[in-house]
């Protein structure tokens, strides 16, 4: 029975907006507990050094200082996929910015003042800053004991006695034969610097060590259960002894996906006899100490025939993981299986290396390696098209995955995957691809158009799951308990819409408990990978259906009919065709009482869950398997204008098309897209870490790390959402959270070629780089 949807698909306003516009929303930054102490940190000034001595006597003697903790007191190893990290550097520092000493004091100012008195002496060691250099035999080994580290066997493959934390392979078909036979070959290299998520709320955690090795944490995190799990593994404490609260979170973008300050906050609380300790990263620490998005050097080789068909593609990805690679190895893996773009490539050879260097370490970042990879792939596609004398749209269309094709991991492409061709066509049309841009007003300005495809599947373990509980209130309202985190993307509002739709009650009667609490909120893996609306949505649907089953069962007894005969509509249960006999949920939500006083049923509590279905591990040699629950495809087209005298670039029009399957909430979806596009613009034009030759981080503040402001947005943006349904998605929806930023740099890079005839291969495309290349070309001619 196809009923028109009441709530799903509507631009419902988010209910948390009121808390946020009034300042009532409490983030971890804002929380305090009685007796709480504050922490400050001493960071390493060296990229690679042995810690020779730590003299903290003056600090310890300062009034108000409660504890001074160093790495030697903390024999714990952190990491899930790769246990390579300490809470504080133990005897070796591996990046400039690594935390070496922590001070706990009555006030933050006292803790900071104490830090300034601490004298750490170092013996500098050799270092390696470039990941390709790090792969050479002569390179300094960032982790000489790599071969002794625990890691997830069968999934990750560190190479002992090297700086290679992981090597992922894709071997599909026979690349060597195919490339030799290709009519035209093209090869090129590309570079991405590390960047930072820049959540407006920096990392913050409050920890309280409780008696009997229990703990309670309040933390700005995307993943309360992953925090709990990793803390359990690290400290050897049962999961149930660890309670994690996540209040409002001021942005995450992947940077708060794994462990951040939690282990440190816990050991500090333990060091002060269990008083709560709050650790808040300064903005400089957020940049310099906390993890980044890995840098990437990629090399792409393509072979194609004159009819435009790609016959072979080879890519080598060298990821700059920084000093620790627990999350980085995942990105190296995911990027490999996505690493050829949304194209049908029968012969594909990919090597993805995750390499240690002496720089701040990488972690998940919106896009999970895909922006970095597609910077290479989508730029390569344009250049290959040119080598063939083909239009870039025609060339891509010739090769985009279509039903009947297989991906590079051997996954069959079906109509349920969505329609990448349609995405390409609509953005090309929106930008008037066939026509050259209008002439700019000034002679020194030039315009160009470019486009790029995007694709991504959730990068997650094959056992990823989500669960939800719905309990009904006395008044028939529903409370959703779930521990995915809404840190701005709006998923909680979407889940309320889904629950209201399924339960057949007004949206105003559906609530979602904002704070996640692992004591009460049921398990969710992590709020990453653009999977929360999909998996959470499915879990909520199942939970709602469970509630309705309970309601129907009790209503059936009350009305003396079979449960199959009961329908639920408008917040009431009644036998089909007899709405006059309706029993409203309020009379069923805590059980039903007959006229004579007999009561049946009881509190209605529905539960639902969703586990990734049908996923397989990737073959370690060939990378073949099924890693993707669903793929989301999209495209961008962009028109730019460049001032050839200054290198300044203006975005005139930026069009984005994403095949969302089903837009669960157009207003929130639009917000995600615009936000992602602008964040992508930051990566494209301005953002990148700058290090000196000693590996010292030079721009750990907004003065010299520039993110887009309101003045930097494109003159015009367009968002087009396609709805080719995703089988298995809630109402046919796919995830779209990461996708809007993934191919922004590539689209702009392609437009720059159109405007200037110059191939840019290194991000960011800042004005200085653009001007330098323009001048080089002028000098050469």
């Amino acid at each position: 029975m196809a009923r028109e949807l009441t709530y799903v698909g509507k631009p419902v306003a988010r209910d948390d907006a009121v808390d946020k516009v009034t300042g009532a929303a409490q983030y971890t930054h804002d929380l305090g507990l009685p007796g709480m102490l504050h922490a400050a940190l001493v960071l390493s000034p060296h990229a690679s050094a042995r810690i020779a001595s730590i003299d903290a006597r003056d600090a310890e003697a300062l009034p108000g200082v409660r504890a001074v903790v160093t790495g030697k007191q903390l024999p714990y190893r952190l990491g899930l996929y790769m246990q390579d990290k300490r809470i504080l550097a133990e005897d070796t520092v591996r990046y400039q910015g690594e935390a070496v000493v922590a001070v706990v004091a009555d006030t933050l100012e006292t803790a900071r003042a104490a830090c300034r008195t601490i004298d750490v002496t170092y013996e500098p060691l050799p270092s390696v800053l470039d990941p390709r250099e790090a792969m050479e035999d002569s390179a300094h080994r960032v982790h000489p004991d790599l071969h002794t580290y625990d890691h997830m066997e069968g999934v990750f493959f560190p190479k002992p006695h090297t700086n290679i934390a992981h090597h992922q392979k894709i071997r599909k078909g026979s690349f060597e034969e195919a490339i030799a036979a290709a009519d035209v070959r093209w090869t090129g290299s590309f570079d991405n610097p590390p960047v930072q998520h820049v959540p407006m709320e920096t990392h913050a955690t409050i920890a309280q060590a409780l008696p009997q090795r229990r703990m309670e944490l309040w933390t700005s995190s995307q993943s309360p259960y992953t925090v709990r799990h990793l803390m359990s593994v690290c400290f050897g404490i049962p999961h149930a002894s660890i309670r994690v609260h996540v209040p409002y979170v001021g942005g995450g973008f992947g940077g708060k996906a794994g462990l951040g300050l939690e282990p440190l906050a816990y050991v500090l609380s333990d060091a002060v006899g269990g008083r709560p300790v709050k650790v808040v990263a300064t903005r400089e620490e957020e940049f310099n100490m906390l993890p980044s998005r890995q840098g990437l050097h990629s090399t792409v080789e393509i072979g194609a025939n004159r009819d435009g068909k790609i016959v072979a593609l080879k890519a080598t990805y060298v990821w700059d993981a920084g000093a620790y690679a627990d999350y980085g190895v995942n990105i190296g893996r995911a990027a490999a299986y996505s690493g050829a773009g949304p194209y049908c490539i029968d012969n594909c050879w990919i090597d993805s290396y995750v390499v240690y260097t002496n720089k701040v370490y990488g972690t998940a970042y919106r896009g999970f390696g895909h922006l970095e990879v597609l910077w290479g792939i989508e730029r390569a596609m344009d250049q290959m098209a040119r080598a063939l004398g083909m239009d870039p749209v025609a060339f891509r269309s010739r090769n985009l995955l279509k039903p009947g094709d297989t991906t590079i991991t051997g996954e069959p492409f079906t109509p349920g995957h969505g329609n990448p061709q349609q995405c390409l066509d609509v953005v090309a049309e929106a930008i008037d691809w066939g026509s050259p841009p209008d002439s700019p007003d000034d002679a020194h300005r030039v315009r160009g158009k470019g486009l790029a495809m995007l694709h991504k599947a959730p990068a997650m373990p094959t056992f990823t799951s989500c669960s939800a509980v719905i309990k009904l209130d006395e008044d028939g309202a529903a409370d959703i308990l779930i521990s995915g985190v809404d840190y701005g993307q709006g998923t909680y509002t979407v889940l309320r819409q889904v629950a209201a739709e399924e339960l057949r009650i007004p949206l105003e009667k559906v609530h979602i408990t904002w704070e996640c609490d692992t004591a009460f909120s049921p398990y969710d893996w992590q709020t990453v990978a653009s999977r929360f609306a999909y998996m959470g949505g499915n879990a909520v649907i199942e939970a709602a259906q469970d509630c309705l089953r309970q309601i129907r069962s009790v209503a059936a007894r009350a009305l003396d009919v079979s449960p199959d005969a009961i329908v639920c509509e408008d917040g009431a249960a009644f036998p089909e065709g007899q709405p006059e006999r309706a029993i409203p949920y309020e009379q069923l939500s805590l059980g039903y009482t007959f006229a004579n006083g007999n009561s049946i049923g009881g509190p209605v509590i529905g539960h639902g869950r969703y586990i990734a279905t049908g996923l397989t591990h990737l073959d370690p040699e060939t990378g073949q398997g099924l890693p993707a629950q669903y793929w989301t495809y999209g495209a961008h087209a962009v028109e730019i204008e460049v001032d050839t005298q200054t290198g300044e670039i203006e975005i005139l029009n930026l069009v984005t098309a994403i095949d969302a399957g089903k837009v669960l909430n157009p207003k929130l979806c639009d917000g995600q897209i615009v936000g992602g596009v602008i964040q992508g613009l930051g990566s494209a034009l301005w953002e990148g870490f700058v290090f000196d030759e000693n590996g010292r981080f030079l721009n750990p503040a907004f003065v010299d790390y520039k993110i887009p402001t309101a003045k930097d947005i494109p003159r015009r943006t367009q968002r087009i959402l396609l709805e080719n349904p995703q089988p298995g998605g809630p109402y046919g929806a796919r995830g779209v959270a990461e996708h809007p930023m993934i191919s922004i740099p590539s689209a702009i890079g392609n437009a720059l070629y159109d405007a200037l005839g110059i191939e840019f291969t290194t991000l960011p495309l800042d004005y200085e780089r653009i001007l330098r290349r323009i001048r080089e070309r002028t000098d050469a001619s």
Partner: protein
Amino acid sequence: MHDIRVTVNGHQESASVPATQTLLEFLRDRLALTGTKEGCGIGECGACTVLLDGRPVTSCLMLAVEADGRSVETIEGEAVGGELSVLQQAFVDAGAVQCGFCTPGMIMSARGLFQRNADPSDEEIVEAIAGNLCRCTGYEAIVAAIRLARDRLNAATAKGDRDGT
């Protein structure tokens, strides 16, 4: 220590503060007005924006002692009698709120704008919030919200004029 008297959201607060305490620390730690946020501590991100005698300033770069005898308005004073202001409601309606961390600063900057210019152009709106960094929304919805608030306020004024109120 310095004795100061500051009017905060219409209430006069008396306190004794160290010279080194910033206005931001005073508001958050002393008065428990945690709606104003710290995003960078160096006046670059605008998350700490409050109104000082009606003008937007970054409170992380002001000392509490400098606020002696002055009036400060924070986000907590924006809603009156439990009713969201036109600005706040517009932010809700226009989808201008995602993680919410930049939101109080944005609203204060917008309030400051309306106080000096009841009919700002798009360019003036952008200029007013250019000092407020946001990582989630991409700014479009925020500009739309301020535009919406402007139009609603001006419509109300026009109506008031017509009704003779």
